[in-house]
């Protein structure tokens, strides 16, 4: 059972100063909640059309890895409120735990720069992959009909199996997280 309702889970000391929080405003540590499983953080933004278009794919990928990897949606924007995030997640059919990260604690730990961007941590909280979900978008306005490489799915599979990845970072295409500040 994923402990999403831990309430005031104390953040652990390895996290830099500050903390991410759940939608009730309580500090929340996804690594602690994952209890040693692989952790997948997906950085998104409610007004980013690229990350929104990925919603069905993200939901499917988390269902496929249920029990082995724990997914969290991370909203890094200060401007996005818990209510607007709840509404957004409902509309897009997300059933994942959503966290706010206005202080960019998880952003920094994941080296994330874009929404949507994924970060995969192994059972030892080691960042094994960060970057795009797949290659649907090659660049601004250069979208494929469908993706031909699936970096995030490959990274999750490797992390679960404890294998080493050949590439642990690929640039993502989307909206700049740095713009949020």
């Amino acid at each position, binding site marked *: 059972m994923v402990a999403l309702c831990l309430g005031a889970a104390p953040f652990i000391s390895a996290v830099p100063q500050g903390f991410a929080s759940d939608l009730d405003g309580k500090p929340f540590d996804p690594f602690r909640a994952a209890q040693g499983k692989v952790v997948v953080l997906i950085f998104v933004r409610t*007004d*980013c*059309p*690229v990350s*929104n*278009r*990925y*919603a*069905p*794919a993200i939901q499917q990928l988390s269902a496929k890895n249920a029990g082995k990897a724990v997914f969290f949606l991370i909203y890094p924007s200060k*401007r996005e409120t818990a209510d607007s995030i709840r509404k957004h997640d409902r*509309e*897009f*059919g997300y059933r994942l735990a959503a966290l706010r990260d206005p202080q960019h604690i998880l952003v920094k730990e994941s080296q994330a*720069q*874009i929404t949507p961007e994924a970060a995969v941590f192994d059972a030892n909280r080691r960042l094994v992959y960060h970057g795009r979900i797949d290659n649907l*978008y*090659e*660049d*601004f*306005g*250069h*979208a*494929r*009909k*469908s993706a*031909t490489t699936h970096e995030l799915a490959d990274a999750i599979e490797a992390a679960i199996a404890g294998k080493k990845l050949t590439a642990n970072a690929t*640039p*993502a*295409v*989307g*909206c*700049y997280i*740095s*713009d*949020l500040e």
Partner: protein
Amino acid sequence: MTVVPQKVTRTRTFLSLAGIVLLAALSGRVLAQQNAAAPTAAPPPQVTFNRDVAPILYRSCARCHRPGEAGPFSLLTYPDAKSHARQIAALTKSRFMPPWLPAEGALKFADELRLSEDEITRIQAWVEQGTAEGNPADLPPKPSVVEGWQLGKPDVIVTATKPYALPASGSDNYWNFVFRTPVDRSRWLKAMEIRPGDKRLVHHANVLVDRQQNGRRLESEPGAGFGGMELTIESEAFDPDSHFLFWKPGSIPYAEPDGMALRLGKDTDLILNTHLQPSGKPETIQPTLGLYFTDKPATKHPILLQLENDRLLDIPPGEKHFVVTDEFTLPVDVDLLAIYPHAHYLGKDLQAIAKFPDGRSETLIHIPDWNLNWQAVYRYSQPVKLAKGTAISMKFVYDNSDDNVRNPNSPPQRVAAGNRAVDEMAHLWLQVLPASAADAKTDPRAEILEAMTRHNLQKNPEDFEAHYNLAALLMRRGEVEKAIAQFAEANRIRPNEPTVNNAYGAALLATGQTEESIPHLTAALNERPDYFDARYNLGNALASLGDFRGALAQFQAAVRINPEDANAEANLGSAFAEIGDTKQARLHYLRALQLNPNHELAKENLQQLSGNPSPH
């Protein structure tokens, strides 16, 4: 006794119109954090939002980036702009935004959205210097926004009968909505506002004028709409669909100048062809059209010229530079009003050039990095004069390799012409207004269309539409024998096409080849039993051969299909008279006169029946 009046049926031309495209999502690509390019011009000491950036955003971005419009976020205030500053800098620098495909050229288009180098440099400097807000006194007034219908309240508002449910995920989606007879009599349409529904989902939309209700036949049930990227619309000759009715994000509805209104008949359907992109959640789309009429009928008749060479489209997998060309020489002087290049996802570099009779040449449009998602109709800021003898040429380059990320096939496949998104097209449409000399004996549109069809037959002697259209033009000129030869070719290529069989039969009938006409008229009816014109023509053919009972049956069927046609009623009366049923004959003559009190033959025949020979 009486001569049965013969009516040569209306003939039709086939215009295949490309409707098409789009989707593009706003995306950014992270490269490195530092901005490599130094500004080329020295920026002012401190670039501020209020003084330097807001005027650019208001003029070139706010049309879409404001609430309710297509942009995914607003760019009306300093916090808005600051929150997206790096995105703005990156996307304007790469010229992905604002979306404007044509390269800068000598000819100017209306509503050009291209940013100048200086504007791009200013935005880069603003972001590099820390996105300062500046002095509030420098901030220009917000762009004025017209709420609601942009041209005032429309005369008629029509909404799609059924919404379309767009799935949450998947690739691009093309859906057509059929709007039914929005008028109860012929009206002149001077403007249309297309409200496609959620503007963030619809990348572009095209309205096609469907005078023969072709679209309805493609619906699974009335009002359901139908899928498909490209449509072929059958239209009457000499009333070609001459206007581009196109919507893209940021489009401002456009009123045609006086005399250039579009005729909208009682039975005209409007088909809205939309290109939709899934958003990540299920959506419903239910577009609305606002129609604006004028009392001023059309006196100027622009037409759409099409250059194309789909037949040459056979692109091997991996081919990076596949070239398709076409060239057409204008038979009359024209004003070029607008241009619409069209290819699918393999198109790379699209260009059109005019070579003038004096040897000069001018680029009409050049799109160096084609993106179907941002396709548009481009209207010239001033009409471009093209003299008789000007050669218009198109050169489209295609990339069917893996380097083209938009390639719908991975790995690349051989691609030929077709209507699906995975097929290709090589089309260039031009809206031209032919100059008509005061003493012109011929309609210049007919001259252009004839030159066009002959050009098409040169490219492809098996071009069905060209044979048919040439035949229709020749019929119109009264050159029936030549028309018959062209109908025969069209009929050879597509033996079952009812429109051709009917027109071919009618032409044979008109030249006294009655027996030869009957198999064609019959074939038309086998294919389309409710085809009024073919019933009527077959009735006439049988009557000419003395088979009045056979004729009677055809006219009865014709009157059932269209009870409002005085000619069919009059001929039905004559058929009854021929078999000796004067009571029925009288009834139908009277009905014909009810429908048209001036129907001479009905009058005459009625008098004959009454034993009062006409004075004629």
